[in-house]
């Protein structure tokens, strides 16, 4: 019989703090190899198709950037929430509402064109995401309602609302009955960065800028300090005069706005119209990105690229090996598991001990300390 024992480190280990994402990734690869072997596929072949082939050409790197952009945008916002110990897990819904708000201009006023259209759409997208995120924030601050459950429930509501819009009032009348809006006009489409090389659009730039700005906010500004203090000790934060309720709103509005920006960027960039489903679970995968990036905006950029690759790899193994692209979800889930597990190493040493051995150890200790023996 073996037993795990955690021994608290005197201070957090800088070594494991840096290493933990890499250990987690290595463990995911090992677990993934076992999984592929169980599915009857040579793991080496599978990994080549999963992790290397999807990024071996320039246009594929553009696809990677397209997938990474929403993940990074959402995850940097979530990282602020999680640092403050506020659990917004409804980014998927805020993403959808950002997309809906921003799309209102090209769908309702298609004749409105010019250079102002796109900035307005992006702004509206942020407003939409923030407004939707304000609901759980309001319920938490006013009525003390658990934000985890409310923000998640609102995801289902948002998805159903989008479904109704594109099948009902916003459906393209010339769309042969397909549940989708009209194609956005030229001035409502997010431009591609290098149209000759690939499809990557400005969304990726937004993501990088947001990550850097949030990094500055968190590491160089008082607000970032406030987030960290309230997150690790609300009591200390209260003494310092930081308001918890204000922080709830700040974190939700910020992460909601970024998720909304991701939503409208995705719709006006990669998709070009509203459809019943506009996200392959970006809002949930971004939670993994945030943790894999150690809640650090710069780490999140790297983590976002890794998770984007899991999406591309999933599509690749589906077409090449006939394995369900759900394999991407499995990889993502395992990665988060291993990251969380490895993070334990930062604060604790792990000792594996047999039960029998501990008894011997205990007896030996008893022998070695005469006082204790006397006390017995």
């Amino acid at each position, binding site marked *: 019989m073996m037993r795990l024992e955690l021994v608290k480190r005197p201070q957090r280990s800088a070594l494991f703090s840096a290493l933990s994402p890499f250990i987690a990734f290595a463990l995911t690869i090992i677990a993934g190899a076992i999984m592929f072997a169980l599915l009857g596929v040579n793991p080496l072949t599978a990994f080549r198709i999963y992790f290397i082939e999807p990024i071996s050409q320039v246009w594929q790197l553009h696809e990677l950037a397209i997938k990474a952009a929403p993940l990074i945008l959402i995850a940097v916002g979530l990282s602020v929430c999680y640092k403050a110990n506020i659990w917004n897990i409804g980014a998927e819904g805020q993403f959808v509402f950002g997309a809906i708000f921003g799309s209102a201009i090209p769908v309702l006023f298609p004749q409105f064109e010019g250079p102002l259209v796109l900035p307005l759409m992006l702004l509206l997208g942020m407003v939409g995401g923030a407004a939707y995120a304000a609901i759980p924030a309001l319920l938490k601050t006013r009525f003390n309602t658990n934000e985890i*459950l409310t923000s998640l429930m609102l995801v289902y509501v948002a998805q159903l609302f989008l479904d109704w819009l594109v099948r009902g009032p916003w459906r393209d009348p010339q769309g042969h009955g397909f549940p989708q809006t009209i194609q956005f006009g030229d001035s409502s489409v997010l431009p591609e960065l290098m149209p000759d090389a690939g499809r990557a659009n400005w969304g990726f730039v937004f993501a990088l800028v947001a990550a850097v700005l949030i990094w500055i906010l968190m590491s160089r500004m008082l607000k970032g300090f406030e987030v960290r203090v309230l997150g690790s000790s609300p009591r200390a934060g209260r003494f310092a005069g930081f308001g918890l309720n204000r922080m709830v709103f700040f974190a939700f509005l910020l992460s909601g706005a970024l998720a909304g920006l991701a939503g409208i960027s995705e719709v006006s960039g990669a998709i070009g119209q509203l459809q019943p489903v506009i996200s392959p679970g970006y809002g949930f995968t971004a*939670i993994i990105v945030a943790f894999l990036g150690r809640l650090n905006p710069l780490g999140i950029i790297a983590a976002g690229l890794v998770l984007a690759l899991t999406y591309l790899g999933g599509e690749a193994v589906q077409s090449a090996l006939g394995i369900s692209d759900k394999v991407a979800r499995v990889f993502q889930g395992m990665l988060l598991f291993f990251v969380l597990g490895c993070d334990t190493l930062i604060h604790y040493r792990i000792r594996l001990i047999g039960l029998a051995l501990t008894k011997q150890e205990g007896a030996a200790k008893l022998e070695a300390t005469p006082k204790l023996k006397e006390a017995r």
Partner: protein
Amino acid sequence: MDITVNILLTIATAATPLLIAAIGELVVERSGVLNLGVEGMMIMGAVGGFGAGYLTGSPWIGLLAAIAMGAVFSLLFAVMTLSLATNQVATGLSLTLLGLGLSGMIGTSFVGQPGVRLPNLDIPGLSSIPVVGKLLFGQDPIFYISIALTAAVMWFLFKTRTGLTLRSIGDSHASAHALGIKVIRYRYLSVIFGGACAGLAGGHLSLVYTPQWVENMSAGRGWIALALVVFASWRPWRVLAGAYIFGAVWIGQLHAQAFGIPVPSQMLSSLPYLATVVVLVLISRNKRLTMMNTPASLGQPFVPDR
């Protein structure tokens, strides 16, 4: 009259998975652990139950497989949060994400296949009593399990010494540990019990409710079960009441859609989720009462010192 009975029967069918999953989570939370992975364990139970039933042809083996699947899957959460002291919120979320992905992958070949259904109880004579016969003696076996489970958990938590110990761990793991209670062992068993319940709830979905495999067929029921526990202030009989209220909302919106009420079907479909939000707001408005009811060490990691 027949219509009323039929509606009551469908409400019971819709409420049963919510009730079972919520009762399991209630025990887990009473021991001080917050497992947000209910949705993931439930969907794993659903796919395991369907798969075993489909491959063996026996819904009973499916039922056992669903329970086992949920329990084994919850063990993953237990090792992480209890032995490695990881953040419970994040770990629970990852359990849900992993479960949704894994079930989708396992279930790829099950899509569109005919499933097996657990037969309804049918006691000759009793089941044909008008009105109450069907309701009391003609339902699916899991319905009876759910009621028995609720009663058993009620008795266990409030009438047995072990139940008292479990509740004390949930209220203060440090004190319980100081008294020599094996906090981690109790919590392991609670989490596994919760997983088995969630798996059983999932099995109900794929072996009774809609005997087939559809991806994401749990449709947020695991999350609603979590909300039910809060709604019930961690009391079993209130979970029972809450589950039936939500079952009624769920069935009500389906009937409203079928009757062609001039309201968009999506709006009706979102009612259970909106109802959850509203109910949570109503129940948590009184801050002091919430604090009194919530197990005091809920969600906090515990590392025993030696």
